[in-house]
């Protein structure tokens, strides 16, 4: 069964809630190797998204994603704003006109997101950024398609891979973003952006698990 528009909306709402619940956690992670604002930034952004959502909830998924992207872009700020903004804008472009998403649609959308994030931030795998969580998540989806896995399995595999990618940022020395100023002292701390990325994908797996 595909992911319907209402599932997408439910996901975004759950993400907003999840981010709000984890705001202090994300900020704490950012205190250690950044500037103590990632939680507040993401919370502010998704709060704005929730306010904006009713205006487009009768539109196609592409429009919804683009609206989320534009809203994040103009409310999050910092590194997270343009990156998560680009993520949803790119996903919106890939899903333009769609009222439901197959596993392949979702995989292509998330791959477009990843490419957008990489183009914008120029981070490579292993630079200790959200890319380290997003890349394995996309790869897991692609592999699941090749293995003909059902969508709910694919989503879980994707979230699990994001989690592993997130956890793997801990020992890394940051080469991009604010944590890179720390040099070797950035090692030993989990990346906040990779963490928020994992939370977003985890919520996708959980929310859609129930409906599909």
């Amino acid at each position, binding site marked *: 069964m595909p992911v319907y528009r209402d599932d997408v909306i439910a996901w975004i709402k759950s993400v907003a809630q999840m981010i709000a619940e984890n705001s*202090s956690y994300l*900020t704490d992670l950012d*205190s250690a*190797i*950044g*500037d*103590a*604002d990632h*939680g*507040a*930034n993401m919370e*502010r952004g998704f709060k704005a998204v929730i306010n904006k959502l009713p205006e487009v909830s009768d539109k196609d998924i592409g429009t919804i994603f683009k609206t989320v992207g534009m809203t994040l*872009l*103009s*409310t*999050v*700020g*910092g*590194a*997270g*704003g*343009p*990156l998560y903004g680009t993520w949803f804008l790119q996903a919106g472009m890939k899903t333009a006109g769609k009222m439901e998403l197959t596993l392949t649609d979702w995989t292509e959308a998330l791959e477009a997101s990843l490419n957008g994030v990489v183009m*914008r*931030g120029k981070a490579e795998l292993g630079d200790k950024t959200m890319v380290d969580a997003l890349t394995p998540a996309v790869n897991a989806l692609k592999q699941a398609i090749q293995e003909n896995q059902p969508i709910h399995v694919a989503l879980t595999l994707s979230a699990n891979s994001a989690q592993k990618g997130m956890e793997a940022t801990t020992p890394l020395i*940051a*080469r*991009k*973003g*604010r944590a*890179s*100023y*720390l*040099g070797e*002292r950035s090692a030993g701390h989990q990346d906040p952006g990779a963490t928020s990325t994992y939370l977003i994908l985890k919520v996708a797996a959980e929310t859609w698990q129930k409906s599909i």
Partner: protein
Amino acid sequence: MKKLINKPENVVREALEAIAIAHADLVKVSYDPNYIMRADGPIMGKVGVISGGGSGHEPMHGGFVGMGMLDAACPGAVFTSPTPDQMLEATKAVNGGAGVLHIVKNYTGDIMNFEMAAELARAEGIEVEAVVTDDDVAVKDSLYTAGRRGVGVTVLAEKLCGAAAEQKRSLKEVADMCRKAKNFGRSMGMALTSCTVPHAGKPTFDLPEDEMEIGIGIHGEPGRTRMALKSADEITEMLMEPILSDIPYKTGDEVLMFVNGLGGTPLIELYIIYRKAQEIAAKHGIKVVRSLVGPYMTSLEMAGTSITLLKMDDDMLKLWDAPVKTPALRWGA
């Protein structure tokens, strides 16, 4: 958390409302998206100079808006770069037909948000150049990292570029002046205490009563090294050595020396730092021809200081001395 605020989420908005009234003779404030622009702008035929960045560094950048310096400043949330719509609207608002310079501090967020704004502004037919300041020698520079942070040179570049624009120099010439400041300026800072981001509600880092952080960033990003507290003179040496041993200073150079307070350090202590920094420069045969001492680029209530040296030539000296009329920097007008 001990702060004179109401709600963390209202800090920036309330401060902007105050600035609009307190400095109504110099600036006007636009909301949603937020930016501060000079009261008499846009100036036709003049290059617009704008900057922006997270709030919590006051007076930078809003305090530098006015004749002879910035045409507009875009304040983000505390320590969070502003969003592209702010810079886009500010760029459009200050555009006098001669193009707009974006002075951007080298932080991933600032770079990306300004980049997107510049793309959008260019799409609307406005000529935009962006120059990125990256003068913090505390950070190891490398092609494979985000590079050095933009700190004290930004303030000086805003003054020089603002004066150059006031002379009706072209966008390329004003941008060149910014690149010169970027190339000729170096900075390093240190902290005695942490700051507390209002939303976070607790200090960004813990620093024991007898320790300090050398090479701190202006957002409380940890620095190069943490060590036992030392005397002002020793600390000044620890900041000046990496600055001077970096290019571009040599015997005979004339420099502007900027001793900046991070917010919680009394002015009298900044003078003590300045005294030693000046002495060290002299020992290296470097002449301090202009000075700026005070809290101009702060990190909320953080106690600490940063030193910036900017090698000056005749043109830069004239631009530095040119009239400026902003809330935080003012002379000759």
